[in-house]
């Protein structure tokens, strides 16, 4: 009952002392604003990265690369060692049931592609008929190649949307003849658009051909550098990695003391990578925002203590009309935390608006995550309560008798 009356009284008091309230609120406002925006952007980038990664590298994926050692470097820096073959992959699928599908990734590098006198430099990649299943990328127009084309090393090509614009100048490329280097190909499909990937590559400026064609007609190799495997579900990943390791070691006839001549990269490692990249948002910037909140709290505490001295007569009067010491303490605690909580709420409102703006510029999800809102409001409340302790004690300890005769 008293608490409710004091709360209403305190809210009205904030309106009466606008300037004082404003200055007390400022520190908390800035602190909570910084904290929530930083946490929201951190979470937004993290979610965006993870969802993009999940699209190309879902929870049940394993990236298998030739060459041992630095498994952390990702697919493109893995050693180009001639140790991994299509036979290895077929053996894996045949004897390890938790591996449900696989697709090789042959990077034939950037090559000149010509269509009717126009030419363009394009990244060429070799894949199998499981491309869509394994990499979740289908065709916008036309169709992907099938098992027959792969088996026969057919000269068929899938092109990205950028090529449609640049090489074919917007014309429908299905059925048209192009040359990759000196080899003629027929375009049979246009790949689903992906845009710029996490490596900064334009994934729409590439051509996909059957891996057999890439190996024999373009690269002239009989080994592969990388393949992506899918486990039946996320939980089987570790199992699969262990089984693949022992199978490949056996097939490659590696001795006990020899290191692996292949490496594997799993979603667990991706999460770790994203996590460490995200540390600046989830750890360092929030700490800085926390420091500004701390300073805001110190400012509030000091202004409140000054307020206690100015309000000696008021405190004396309140005691005379029946306020207990705990009522005075509660009043000052409430006043302080009201200032910081209201400051925090205002900061949340502004942060949500700012986030909508940032989201448009950075292609982030346009929402204030509830974690950031809870963190911001919680921090504001704690700052208010902690900052209110000293002023509240001082006010409650004032001797009322001397203040009333003035």
């Amino acid at each position, binding site marked *: *009952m*008293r608490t409710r*009356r*004091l709360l209403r*009284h305190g809210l*009205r008091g904030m309106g*009466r*002392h606008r300037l004082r309230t404003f200055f007390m609120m400022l520190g908390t406002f800035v602190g909570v604003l910084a904290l929530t925006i930083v946490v929201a952007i951190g979470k937004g980038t993290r979610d965006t990265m993870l969802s993009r990664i999940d699209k190309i590298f879902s929870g049940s994926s394993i990236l298998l690369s030739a060459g041992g050692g630095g498994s952390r470097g990702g697919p493109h820096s893995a050693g180009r060692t001639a140790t991994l073959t299509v036979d290895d992959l077929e053996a894996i699928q045949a004897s390890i049931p938790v591996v449900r599908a696989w697709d090789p990734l042959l990077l034939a590098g950037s090559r000149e592609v010509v269509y009717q006198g126009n030419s363009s430099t394009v990244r060429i990649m070799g894949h199998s008929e499981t491309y869509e299943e394994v990499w979740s990328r289908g065709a916008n127009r036309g169709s992907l190649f099938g098992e027959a084309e792969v088996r026969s090393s057919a000269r068929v090509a899938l092109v990205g949307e950028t090529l449609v614009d640049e090489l074919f100048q917007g014309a429908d490329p299905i059925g048209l003849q192009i040359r990759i280097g000196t080899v003629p190909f027929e375009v049979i499909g246009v790949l689903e658009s992906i845009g710029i990937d996490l490596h900064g590559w334009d994934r729409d400026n590439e051509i996909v051909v059957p891996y057999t064609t890439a190996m024999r007609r373009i690269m002239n190799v009989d080994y592969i550098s990388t393949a992506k495997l899918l486990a039946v579900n996320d939980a089987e990943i570790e199992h699969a990695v262990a089984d693949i390791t022992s199978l490949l070691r056996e097939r490659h006839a590696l001795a006990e003391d020899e290191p692996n001549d292949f490496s594997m990269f799993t979603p667990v490692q991706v999460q770790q990578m994203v996590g460490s990249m995200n540390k600046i948002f989830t750890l360092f910037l929030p700490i800085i925002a926390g420091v500004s909140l701390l300073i805001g709290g110190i400012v509030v505490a000091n202004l409140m203590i000054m307020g206690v001295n100015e309000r000696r*007569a*008021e405190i*004396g*009067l*309140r*005691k*005379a*009309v*029946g*306020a*207990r*010491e*705990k*009522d005075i303490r509660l009043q000052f605690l409430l006043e302080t935390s009201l200032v910081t909580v209201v400051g925090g709420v205002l900061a949340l409102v502004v942060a949500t608006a700012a986030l909508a703006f940032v989201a448009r510029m950075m292609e982030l999800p346009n929402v204030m995550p509830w974690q950031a809102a809870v963190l911001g409001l919680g921090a504001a409340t704690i700052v208010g309560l902690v900052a209110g302790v000293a002023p509240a004690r001082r006010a409650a300890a004032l001797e*009322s*008798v001397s203040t*009333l*005769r*003035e």
Partner: protein
Amino acid sequence: MTSERGKIELERVCKTYKKNAQEVRALVEVTLSVDPGEFVAVVGPSGSGKSTLMNVVGLLDRPDSGVYRLDGSDVASHKRDELARLRNEKIGFVFQSFHLLPKTTALENVELPLIYCTRSDISGLGARALEQVGLKDRAKHLPSELSGGEQQRVAIARALVNEPEIILADEPTGNLDSRSGLAVLAIFQELNRQGKTVVLITHDKAVAAMANRQLEIVDGRIVTDEPVENPKDAQTELEVVS
């Protein structure tokens, strides 16, 4: 025990202050009894102990020795929170310098004691108290928009709002012109007629002449304690002045 409600009894009460390393004996063996419904004026030169007496009677200060019984019960045994409750319920204070909260409307000032009271239904009490002092139409005014006399009447309404038995007024007319002072005193007389005990501290003999009983304090001792013959009526005086 209804006859005891609002009864003030002091027995050999002493209070000593330290001021600038010097001991000031503010109250020396004061024995006093005020019955419910009395209107007592306490007069004396400044520094005589009047205000200390009011602080002790008003439960803002405890005596060093002696016994103070309010409503027949010894207050020495009460804890500080209990004293706060008694101040809230039994005593209304009126001060020389009004002590209204600035930037706060008259009505909200009047309602201040209700924040700390234990009753659950407090609606209308503030408005009624303002009506009692004739300031119903000033409820939304800020203290800065009111005259000194009106401010003091708001303060009296605040003292009345929780319906205490005792009104303690410390130089309530000290900051007012004589007309406003008379208006304030007329309110005290009216409250006294309604049955409230009024203890008024003043150094002004003319003000003391409005009470039914006059105490004089010199150097912490009560030197005279006598009824006032034919107390003056403030309302009549007010009509004479205007």
